[in-house]
């Protein structure tokens, strides 16, 4: 039924790169785009050739929010029946590391999607915020939950209740993004990070991601116990043997992904 794809997908050296392709609407995230994104991420999650996934927009926008025109006149019941945010749960279940490359706007749903990524590389020109309050609503795809976990209650409230944007430098200072790079390098630097990451042991990458995310769900003692089990579990992989032997032999490890 869909005539054109709203995302572009490519692979490069163990890295899957998906780019939003709705430049005219600053990559507004409509349900079709989110479906396509979730489908693509699940395909790569099951593809042994892919270790790391990069999610990017274009220079002007990572994603400037949800498709407001599409929602404006819907009723509460229609929104409930459609339950469009369930697609987002599929993205949350992706086990491989997600790296966001953020240039320009990451607003509303764009910010929420950005926060679902594991490593976030922002260009100096990035503008990040949850401005839903300005159109009479509030974040609906995790913003009220993930933002305070990332930046603390006071800053999250400020952003969500005033709708103001953060610059890249402020976002870095607040711990919302991982690194800031000059605008010319937003994508190639992200790719460098992703390719480097893709050379690590694939199982270790996925379990480490799972363990870090556990920190947001579990009490400390439970998280520590969980971490410990995953750590021990990695000794069942060949990559652990190779990694530790290479370290002892002062050479570079070559991981096979199992």
């Amino acid at each position, binding site marked *: 039924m869909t005539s054109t794809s709203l995302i572009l997908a490519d692979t490069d050296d163990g890295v899957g790169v998906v780019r939003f392709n709705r430049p005219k609407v600053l990559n507004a995230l409509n349900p079709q785009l989110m479906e396509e994104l979730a489908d693509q991420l699940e395909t790569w999650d099951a593809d042994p050739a892919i270790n790391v996934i990069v999610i990017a927009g274009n220079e002007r926008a990572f994603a400037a929010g949800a498709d407001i025109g599409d929602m404006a006149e819907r009723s509460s019941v229609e929104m409930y029946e459609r339950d469009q945010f369930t697609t987002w749960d599929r993205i949350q279940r992706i086990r491989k590391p997600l790296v966001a490359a953020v240039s320009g706007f990451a607003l509303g749903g764009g910010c929420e999607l950005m926060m679902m990524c594991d490593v976030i590389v922002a260009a100096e020109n990035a503008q990040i915020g949850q401005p839903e309050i300005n159109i009479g609503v509030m974040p609906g795809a995790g913003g009220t939950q993930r933002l305070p976990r990332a930046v603390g209650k006071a800053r999250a409230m400020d952003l969500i209740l005033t709708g103001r944007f953060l610059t890249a430098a402020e976002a870095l200072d607040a711990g919302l993004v991982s690194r800031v*790079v*000059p605008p*010319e*390098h937003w994508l190639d*630097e992200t790719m460098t990070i992703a390719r480097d990451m893709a050379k690590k042991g694939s199982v270790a990458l996925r379990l480490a991601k799972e363990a870090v995310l556990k920190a947001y769900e579990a009490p400390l003692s439970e998280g520590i116990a969980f971490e410990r089990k995953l750590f021990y579990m990695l000794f069942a992989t060949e990559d652990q043997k190779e990694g530790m032997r290479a370290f002892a032999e002062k050479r570079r490890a070559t991981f096979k992904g199992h």
Partner: protein
Amino acid sequence: MTATATTPETILTSLEDHVLTITLNRPDTYNAFSDQLSRELLATLKDAGRNRDARVLVITGAGKAFSSGQDLAELKERYVPGHEPHLGKDLDKRYNPIIRAICAMEKPVIAAVNGVAAGAGCSLALACDLRLASEKASFVEVFVNVGLVPDSGSSFFLPRLIGHARAMELCCTGRPVDAAEALTLGIVNRVVPPDELAAAATKMATKLAAMPARALALTKRLLVQSATNSLEEQLTAERFAQETAGRTADHTEGVLAFLEKRKPAFRGE
């Protein structure tokens, strides 16, 4: 030309040989910042930033002054008993965006200071990348004389140019600095006779316009960042900027010209 909503009335612009000259044009008020002038200057700067033909900017004043700063006559109605002037709002809306636009402008901005530069007019000159001064120029951090503090970036740029002690002296006394002293203090790059200022500014701007534009843009970005970066951050910024510069056609041309022992012909790409 790009179509703008209205032709500015308080700003004159002329573009020649990739040099955009912006003239503050309210000579009867010594080019004071009216609401209209600050609005039109900001719009002009934003256009200039997008205009690829404009590689270097020159900012100067019409008539005797560079700029006398805020037009106090325009604020008169705010100074009535029981009324607070709320100057912070003016800085948010009118002045700070201009200063940010100049610093973010990825091309050299030259102030050709033809006469007095006072208050926000002084700040405007200090926010520029280079300053040429007429022998009749003067710089006055006049704010303290009306019970105010240096704004529009003056408290940032001045101590970085001349050091804390001298900045304190100028900002706390409101004493005018003439062109000769400005040169000694390092506030201006060069002082020339009044009737040679325009030509000197054009000459310097034309020279910069013939330099590799991307390298200049990246150099400016680095120098602006250096004011607030640590060494580590700056080394990283340099690494990225060099990576970018290394990919320009002008870099290739520069290296080839050197090897072929000829003058490089930079095209700004």
